[in-house]
C-alpha cells in the first residue's frame, strides 16, 4: 500500500475503516478481509485517526446522522474527506455523502462530498426491495446487486462518473476518491465492487473472482 492522501501526518496505519455506528458494517469488514485488507471498526475520532480510507455502510441514515454528532466524528470526518480521504458509501452511506437529500429529516447531517441528489427510500418499502444483475463498468461479468429500501439517485452532476445504471438511473457512481452505491455490494460475497474502490487509491490488490 502507498501513503494515501488524507491520512494524518506521521500515521503509519494502513487500515481501511468501516464506520461502525450502526448498520451492515460487519458484512463490509468480511469483504475487505477477503481482499487481504486490514479492516477496522470506526466509532470514535481516535478510531478515525488510525485509518487511511473509510467505508460507510448501509443502515438507517437518520440514526447514523445522530450518532455522528454524539460520537464527535462529524467534524473530523468532514475535514478528512475534504483532505482527500477515500470514502465508499453504500445505501445510507451514500445518503450521508450526497450534496442533496430528498425526503430526509431537516436535521439530517451530510458530508456533501458527492454532487448527486438522492431520494431516501426512493425504491419504496421493504416489500419493494429486490435483487438483480447489474452491468458495472470495468467488470467483465454482471454484478448481483441487492437493493434494500434503497435510496434513488435522481440527479448526477456532469463531473460524476456513472459506473452502473438500473432502469436508466445511476446506481454506482464515483467522483474523485468518493464512491457510492445505492445497492449493497457487501451482501453476497462478491468482492469486485470493493476491489474497484480500493484500486482508486491503493497499489494493486489481490485479484479475486
Amino acid at each position, binding site marked *: 500500500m502507498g501513503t494515501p492522501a488524507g491520512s494524518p501526518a506521521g500515521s503509519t496505519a494502513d487500515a481501511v475503516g468501516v464506520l461502525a455506528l450502526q448498520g451492515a458494517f460487519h458484512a463490509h469488514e468480511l469483504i475487505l478481509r477477503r481482499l487481504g485488507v486490514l479492516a477496522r471498526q470506526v*466509532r*470514535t475520532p481516535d478510531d478515525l485517526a488510525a485509518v487511511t480510507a473509510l467505508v460507510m455502510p448501509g443502515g438507517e441514515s*437518520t440514526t447514523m446522522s445522530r450518532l455522528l454528532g454524539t460520537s464527535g466524528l462529524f467534524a473530523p470526518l468532514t475535514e478528512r474527506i475534504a483532505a482527500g480521504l477515500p470514502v465508499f458509501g453504500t445505501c445510507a452511506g451514500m445518503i450521508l455523502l450526497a450534496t442533496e437529500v430528498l425526503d*430526509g429529516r431537516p436535521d439530517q447531517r451530510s458530508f456533501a462530498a458527492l454532487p448527486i441528489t438522492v431520494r431516501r427510500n426512493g425504491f419504496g*418499502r421493504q416489500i419493494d*426491495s*429486490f435483487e438483480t444483475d447489474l452491468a458495472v463498468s470495468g467488470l467483465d461479468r454482471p454484478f448481483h446487486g441487492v437493493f*434494500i*429500501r434503497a435510496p434513488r439517485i435522481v440527479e448526477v452532476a456532469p463531473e460524476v462518473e456513472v459506473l452502473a445504471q438500473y432502469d436508466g438511473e445511476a446506481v454506482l457512481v464515483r467522483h474523485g476518491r468518493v464512491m457510492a452505491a445505492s445497492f449493497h455490494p457487501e451482501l453476497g460475497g462478491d468482492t469486485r465492487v470493493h476491489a474497484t474502490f480500493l484500486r482508486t487509491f491503493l497499489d494493486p490488490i489481490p485479484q479475486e473472482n
Partner: protein
Amino acid sequence: MKTPDAPRTTGTFPVKRGLAEMLKGGVIMDVVTAEHAKVAEDAGAVAVMALERVPADIRRDGGVARMSDPEMIEGIQAAVTIPVMAKARIGHFVEAQILQSLGVDYIDESEVLTPADEAHHIDKFAFTVPFVCGATNLGEALRRISEGACMIRSKGEAGTGNIVEAVRHLRAIVGDIRKLGQADSAELFGWAKQLQAPLPLVQEIAETGWLPVPLFCAGGIATPADAALAMQLGAEAVFVGSGIFKSADPSPRAKAIVEATTHFRDADILAKVSRGLGAPMTGIGMDELDQHYADRGW
C-alpha cells in the same frame, strides 16, 4: 450500449435477511402513537414496532391481545421515515397477510400477543415481507429459521423491565452455537435430535459458527446498561418495548439506549450516557409473574 435491464426479484431470502443486516447495531422501539414514533425517530431508533399497547399494559389489562388496528399502523407509517414493524399472533397467517398488505417492513410473529395456533407457526416462506420470531434456545431459533424467519430475537420476558430472561435466552443460544463448533460430524446428528432442529441447519452452524440470520435481543431492556449487556453477550441489535415509554422521561432514555447500543464495549461512554435519566420503569420480578410469555411458541 443500452441493453435491457435484468429482471428484479422481490421477497427472496437475501432481500429479507438484508433488512435485518441494515438494522444491526441499532435500537427498535415499541410505539403506540405517531407522537411516540417521532420521539423514537428523533432519538435515533433504526425502526419502530407499531402496536396498540406496550407489553407492560398488555400484562396489566389481560384478555386477548391481537394485531393492531390498521388505521393506527398507517398513522405511524405516515409519521416516520424509518422502517415500521408490526406484530401478528403466533400462527395467525391472516393477520400477517393484512400486515403485508399494509406494507409494514417486518412482521414480528410474537408471543406477546395471544397465540392463535397451539401447534403451528406461520409458514413465513409464503410471504414477501420478512419475519422476526422469538426464541428461548437454539433449537427454537432453528425451527423458526426453517419456517422462513429472517431474524431471530431472544424472547426475554416482555413488559417486565427485567433483563434476566433475555440473558438466559441469549446465553442458551450463543452457548450452544459455541458447543456446535466443537462437535465432530457424528455428534451433529445427536445435536439435531436433541435440539429438534433440521440437520442441515445444525451442520451449517457448526461450519460457520453463527446463525444464518441476525440474532437480536428483546424482552426486559430498561437501561443503557441492559442494552450494552445484551450486545456484549452476542446480540447484534436490541428491541426495547415498555422500557422507554414506561420510564419517567422517555426521550433522553431512548437517546441514551441508542448510544449505549453503538458504544456497547466503551464503559466510559456507557457511564456518561447513563447519568441523570430519571426513573426507569419499575419492573417486575420473575416470581411475581402469573404469565410467562416466553412459554408461548413451539
